């Protein structure tokens, strides 16, 4: 297919939408979150209801990707008015169809956030949950059917690829990405343009593009939602990256725990191949690119780039020391570009709207938007996207709707097991890479867990340490044994069996493991511990056995003193 054919398809598809024979369009969220609360039954029941009423020719029903407020699911959206119904179940579908389609007025008490807001908004975009957000990566999630490439084409899909292939040289693309100041969304925040340029400069007959979709942080589901809600966007980003660095082959490494994301991404690949948007001679430009899916087998460490490469090569998924970096010596020894799902999903808007536009969003050092998986003790949890530099207070109290049950905000955990916590005193922190690092936390991939006064910070540290201990690959000693030792010591503190000596030893070990581990897993495993120690040291101190209490310790009867 050449450029003209693509235009023809898009025109035809747009014309179809404009002369829509349907008067109404209803989207039912079919992200993994809503499916688990029963949205597939809702979709089926809705279809039946519409058929029984003979409205088949008036109402179009589509399954969509994630809409955002995941804990209110299953969600159903009347697309023309952006009216969202929450917690829809099969019993109230008839009423919704009657009221929304036939009587043309929404049912107030079923609207999104109707149970917690005094007056719910008919147009969900007016609701503070959505109003404070800026959706770039998630823009079309929840608007289109992720399993139809035509839906994506109507929403400017593959326009950025078309633009790069026909109007831009690889250098132009890299310059545009550099200009946008986009930073890698996988966690470390390495400038994407710089990474692309590095790989571009290595001369080799074969280079690779890898999309890292091995999202393993507990409580994080950004990449899953993007892959499920708009897989073509990621595919387009990968193809643009391939063109920019001179690669002809891409791999998408998606964790096996995301069967729906894998299915939709594979469907997207098939559709794109069929349309000639992947394969040889894409859009008549002599550029060839193809993508294959590789499924992760459940190891957290395979999110680390060198372990991920080993896993794709069919080896045991363990990291190797860097340098050499994958940009020089990557998959099968060839120069390889690895970016996160969210990074690739940010590429096409940058190409279409220009790097300048993107760089103006966010803070001077961290441009653009960031997707967070908001969870924990707040009223509205789910998937949100905000400009960099949005304050934590805004996220928790405006978007998240405040603390659950009127609780008191204690801390927010960012970056999962590699991150740290932000205490209440820093609620006004502007969320970007630097600000979070200064607080002893990290941006990470975007997990954001809100905790209230009932959370025990020592237990939080113990939980994440146990996670890292389980997920350590066992290759290097500091991570393999150090995490186990730290986990045991933390358990000892949790059980009120520890003394000051144990705490000192724990701190020494934490810094040792952080500085000596081979890869990022061990290097960041002590972060939750160090961060909770920094902000909540008294919680640790209060648990220790003090010297004057030593006579009160109960000695188990089977131990002789």
């Amino acid at each position, binding site marked *: 297919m050449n450029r003209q054919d693509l235009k023809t398809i898009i025109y035809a598809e747009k014309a179809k939408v404009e002369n829509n024979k349907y008067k109404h369009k209803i989207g039912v969220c079919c992200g993994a979150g809503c499916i688990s609360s029963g949205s597939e039954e809702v979709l089926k029941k809705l279809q039946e209801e519409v058929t029984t009423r003979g409205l088949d020719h008036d109402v179009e029903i589509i399954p969509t990707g994630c809409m955002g407020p995941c804990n209110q699911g299953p969600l159903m959206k009347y697309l023309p008015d952006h009216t969202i119904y929450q917690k829809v179940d099969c019993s109230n579908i008839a009423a919704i169809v009657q009221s929304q389609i036939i009587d043309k007025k929404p049912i107030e008490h079923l609207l999104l956030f109707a149970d917690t807001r005094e007056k719910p908004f008919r147009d969900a975009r007016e609701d503070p949950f959505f109003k404070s957000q800026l959706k770039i990566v998630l823009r079309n999630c929840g608007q289109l059917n992720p399993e139809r490439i035509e839906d994506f084409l109507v929403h400017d899909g593959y326009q950025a690829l078309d633009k790069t292939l026909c109007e831009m040289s690889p250098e132009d693309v890299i310059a545009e990405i550099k200009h946008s100041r986009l930073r890698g969304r996988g966690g470390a925040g390495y400038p994407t343009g710089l990474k692309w340029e590095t790989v571009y400069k290595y001369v080799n007959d074969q280079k690779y593009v890898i999309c890292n979709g091995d999202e393993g942080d507990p409580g994080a589901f950004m990449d899953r939602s993007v892959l499920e809600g708009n897989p073509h966007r990621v595919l387009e980003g990968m193809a643009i990256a391939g063109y920019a660095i001179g690669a002809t082959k891409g791999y998408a490494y998606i964790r096996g725990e995301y069967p729906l994301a894998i299915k939709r991404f594979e469907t997207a690949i098939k559709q794109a191949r069929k349309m000639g948007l992947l394969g040889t001679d894409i859009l008549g430009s002599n550029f060839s690119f193809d993508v294959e899916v590789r499924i992760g087998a459940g190891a957290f460490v395979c999110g680390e780039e060198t372990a991920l490469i080993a896993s794709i090569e069919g080896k045991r998924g363990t990291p190797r020391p860097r340098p050499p970096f994958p940009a020089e010596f990557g998959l099968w020894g060839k120069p390889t570009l690895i970016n996160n799902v969210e990074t690739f999903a940010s590429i096409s808007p940058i190409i279409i709207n220009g790097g300048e536009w993107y760089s103006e969003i966010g803070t001077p050092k961290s441009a653009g938007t960031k997707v967070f998986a908001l969870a924990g003790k707040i009223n509205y949890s789910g998937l949100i996207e905000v400009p960099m530099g949005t304050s934590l207070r805004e996220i928790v109290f405006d978007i998240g709707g405040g603390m659950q049950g009127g609780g008191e905000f204690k801390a927010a955990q960012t970056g999962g097991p590699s991150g740290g916590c932000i205490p209440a005193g820093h609620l006004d922190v502007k969320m970007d890479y630097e600000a979070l690092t200064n607080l002893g936390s990290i941006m990470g991939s975007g997990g954001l867990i809100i905790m209230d006064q009932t959370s025990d910070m020592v237990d939080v540290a113990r939980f994440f340490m146990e996670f890292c201990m389980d*997920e350590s690959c066992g290759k290097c000693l500091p991570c393999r044994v150090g995490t186990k030792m730290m986990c045991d010591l933390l358990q000892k503190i949790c059980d009120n069996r520890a003394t000051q000596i144990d705490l000192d030893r724990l701190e020494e070990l934490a810094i040792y493991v952080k500085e*000596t581990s081979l890869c990022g897993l061990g290097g960041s495993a002590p972060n939750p511990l160090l961060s909770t120690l920094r902000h909540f040291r008294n919680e640790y101190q209060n648990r220790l056995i003090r010297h004057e209490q030593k006579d009160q310790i109960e000695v188990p009867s089977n131990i002789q003193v």
Partner: protein
Amino acid sequence: MNKLTIYIDDKQFQAEPGKSILEVCREHDIEILTMCHLKGVNDVGACRLCLVEIEGMSKLLSACTTKITANMVIHTKTERIKKYQRITTELFFAERNHVCAVCVANGTCELQDLGYKVGMDHIRYPFLFPKCEVDTSHPWYVMDQNRCIMCTRCVRVCNEVEGAHNWDVKNRGYQVRIISDFDTPWGESITCTSCGKCLQACPTGALWPKAIVQGQMKKNPEIIDELMERRKMIL
């Protein structure tokens, strides 16, 4: 070939490009402690004993896997590195069940030597006392997981030198174990050629020939490198 100038512990050295920091240090008799390094097979940088400080780098890098670059300033004996070497050694001992008094390698054990070198008089961490298997199914050799430090030297020798790939690693985290084939008893392995190179490669008493007792193990790990050098000459 143009030599590169590097600085190790405030002394200037000339070295060929492409060499690792460890190789240069060994050439000039600068002591770097190692455990997973074995001359003749590829380095993996797993034991973290050979970490060095390099000026301009925020991270500590393993000397065995880091190649020298021009004007590199390396410090190998800072207080921080000494402290970490001591912790690493203690963790090695605390991880499995190392009892020198009953071990065949007593006297020839690299882990034992390491303990002396870093001046380890006691271990500050609680022993993990894992339950480990002893595999005596092979007619000539024994594999004792209690004494294994997971340096994977046997795995690499078997794969890279002998080409048999009998040894591999299973599980993860502190539960990793060396396995024969797909976790079958060593005696039933269909890949093992019984060449015995892994016994020479092992730094501790985890692999040893039957019919010897405490302290009788003779080791010659250099044989692996000699073998590789001779092969190069033939080629």
